[in-house]
């Protein structure tokens, strides 16, 4: 019976807000990494911008929707910060700059010097009233059997997957346009594209910005779901969890990020549930419940390694579009 609960829990997580946030940020990362070949290791900074845009605006007395828009604008600024120093250089420089700038932003936001502006390590709470006020779903529980959601959660899920669908369609449409062809050309052979007279730098910057805005929306969505924003959620490890989701689903495919996020959260939640069962019943003695959060990221790291080793194209990708050089 308990094992059934673990399975149900894992299924709930895989369609729930956590998976949605990573799917949406993943669609953005997929545009940057999967299609444009950009090693953006600072996706979490865009999410931070979205989350703080929403919560700070409400805290200052503004409406929540304005906060979300401001978060998206902040993401554009961050894209400039990432892109201007590094996009003209070789791919690995972008990785170094994005991981560093992402960390600078988190350090500055959590510092006590900027606490009057950002609330420091405490962050913000209870700012998403508007989002739940416009929820048209009447109260109650929805679903079947043990697989149910409250009207609040269902609202987040409907809006969230709606956003994932819109973002995926946008990427689909972009990648079919001439702009997308050039972008894929940039990934395959930058010099060839440059010799055709295209401004490679601008294409990269645009991809970085569009993907970043999607991550900012994902950050806002996470903030509204949890109604709590703290700087110490936005560690670089979140970026790499998004990478795991994207590569698991298939980098450079339209549905890959969404599928990958669902699959990753299913795996993570399921193994956590099994471990929790083991710890509760005393079978697993060398771990305690406090270790579970760290074990989650051990699983993510392992997923990344095993994927590149055994299936670099992920669930949906084709071998030739994977991470293999030829």
């Amino acid at each position, binding site marked *: 019976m308990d094992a059934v609960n673990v399975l149900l829990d894992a299924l709930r997580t895989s369609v729930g807000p956590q998976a949605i946030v990573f799917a949406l940020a993943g669609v953005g990362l997929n545009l940057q990494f999967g299609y444009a070949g950009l090693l953006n290791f600072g996706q979490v900074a865009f999410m931070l911008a979205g989350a703080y845009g929403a919560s700070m605006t409400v805290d200052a007395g503004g409406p929540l929707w304005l906060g979300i828009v401001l978060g998206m604008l902040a993401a554009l600024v961050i894209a400039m910060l990432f892109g201007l*120093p590094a996009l*003209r250089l070789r791919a690995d420089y972008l990785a170094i700059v994005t991981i560093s700038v992402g960390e600078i932003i988190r350090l500055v936001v959590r510092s006590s010097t900027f606490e009057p502006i950002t609330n420091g390590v405490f962050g913000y709470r209870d700012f998403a009233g508007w989002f739940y006020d416009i929820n048209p779903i009447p109260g109650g529980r929805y679903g079947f059997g043990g697989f149910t959601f409250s009207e609040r959660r269902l609202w987040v899920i409907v809006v969230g997957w709606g956003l994932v669908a819109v973002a995926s369609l946008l990427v689909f449409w972009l990648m079919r346009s001439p702009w997308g062809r050039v972008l894929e050309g940039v990934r395959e052979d930058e010099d060839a594209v440059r010799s055709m007279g295209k401004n490679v730098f601008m294409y990269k910057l645009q991809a970085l910005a569009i993907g970043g805005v999607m991550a900012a929306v994902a950050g806002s969505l996470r903030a509204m779901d949890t109604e709590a924003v703290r700087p110490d959620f936005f560690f670089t490890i979140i970026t790499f969890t998004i990478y795991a989701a994207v590569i698991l689903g298939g980098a450079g495919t339209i549905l890959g990020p969404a599928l990958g996020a669902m699959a990753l959260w299913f795996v993570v939640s399921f193994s956590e549930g099994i471990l929790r069962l083991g710890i509760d019943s005393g079978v697993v003695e060398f771990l305690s419940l406090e270790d579970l959060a760290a074990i989650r990221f051990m699983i993510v790291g392992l997923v990344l390694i095993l994927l590149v080793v055994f299936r670099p194209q992920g669930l949906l990708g084709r071998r030739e579009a*994977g991470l293999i050089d030829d």
Partner: protein
Amino acid sequence: MYPNEQARACHRALRVGIVSGLLFLLMAALGGPHDPAMAQEPPTPGQGVSGQLVVGSDPVEGVTIEVAGTSGADVATVETDDEGAWSVPLTSPDTYEISIDVDTLPDGVALADPERDSLTLPVREGQNRIIIFQLTDGEGSAEDEEDGFDFIGLDFKRLASLTVDGVRFGIVIGVMAMGLSLIFGVTGLINFAHGELVTFGAIMAWLFNAGWFRFPLLIAALCALVLAAVLGGGLELGLVRPLRRRRTSNIALIVVTIGLSEFLRSFYQVTFGPLPKSYRDYAIQREADLGLFAVTPKTLGIIAIGALAILLVALVLQRTRLGTAMRAVADNKDLAAASGIDVQRVVLHVWILGTVLAALGGILLGVTQKVEYDMGFKALLLMFAAVVVGGLGTAYGPLLGALLLGIVTQVSTLWFPTEFKFVFALLALILMLVFRPQGILGRRERVG
């Protein structure tokens, strides 16, 4: 292009590598952290404040310390025990005011800075914050102030002391960054798991020094370096080489090192524990006043060991056949292979050397700021900054960059809050990329 036979052999080697790596980690997990010797750490998972009062190396007993939350919660008064230690568990994260009752200090002992009898600082969720009240046995606090001659409001003695500490920090980061840059220079791969190799060295030395065994730190460090060499060689043979044989792209290899980094860091967190721990030797030292600046003996020791290591690596690179081969491979792999250099062997040696340097840096870092599961990852960003400022792929650039950044980060605390010191290092990285992307020592060539 590659026959199936060989691909299958690669596959097998890879699987063996991964399985044996996991086994190795599992053994470490079962042996290490649940040793009874670790029971001395407070087992509470919640937050708290604690500290130890010492004069020189003598503990101060029976001093009253009061802790009060600024929002009214949690008021507690404790006395230091016979080891001078005290700790207060706290029910919630908040900003706390911690004050020491000066009247309960023994005769002849006073606060080094009489103004600092009370500190107000935030305690995060789950954080065990270490509080330091600097004590003196009355010998010199008044004279010290006259010693440091003021000039345009600048305390030159403090500036000099911070500079020396910056050199110490710079050399430590430089040792690690040299490892990172060597591996990059020869293999073209930026190893994002380099920080975890740093932590590996620090944790292994801790296990030999205070966990499994009680070796003196110098011997424990040597054991840790040997294990690091094994780990470095194992990573190349078991993971990176088979992947490279399968013509995995550089970007995919970077993703693998990212996964390895996340995996190892969380693994350390589970097995070593989330709290920082110190080595048994050299944990607390008093600063010696050398006239121009004040410095702890261990700072000088770290600078000497770090400089010696760097010198050794420089000698290997310049004077030995292996070093020449490394530089040749870094310069042009195909040409090196064509002139009879065994590239695979050179790459293996570079991985071993790079990992040993990382581990050595980790041990040196652990001597001054305790051993922690994410110490290497925090240092990684500074290594990146050092490597980029000095010149990516050059052998000595990282050292130069690290020394500059070490001094800048430490001296910046004279004027700016300590929490910003790493921000300056990372800003230096960005500015360098904008204005001189090849770094100080890098050759002028297209890096884009």
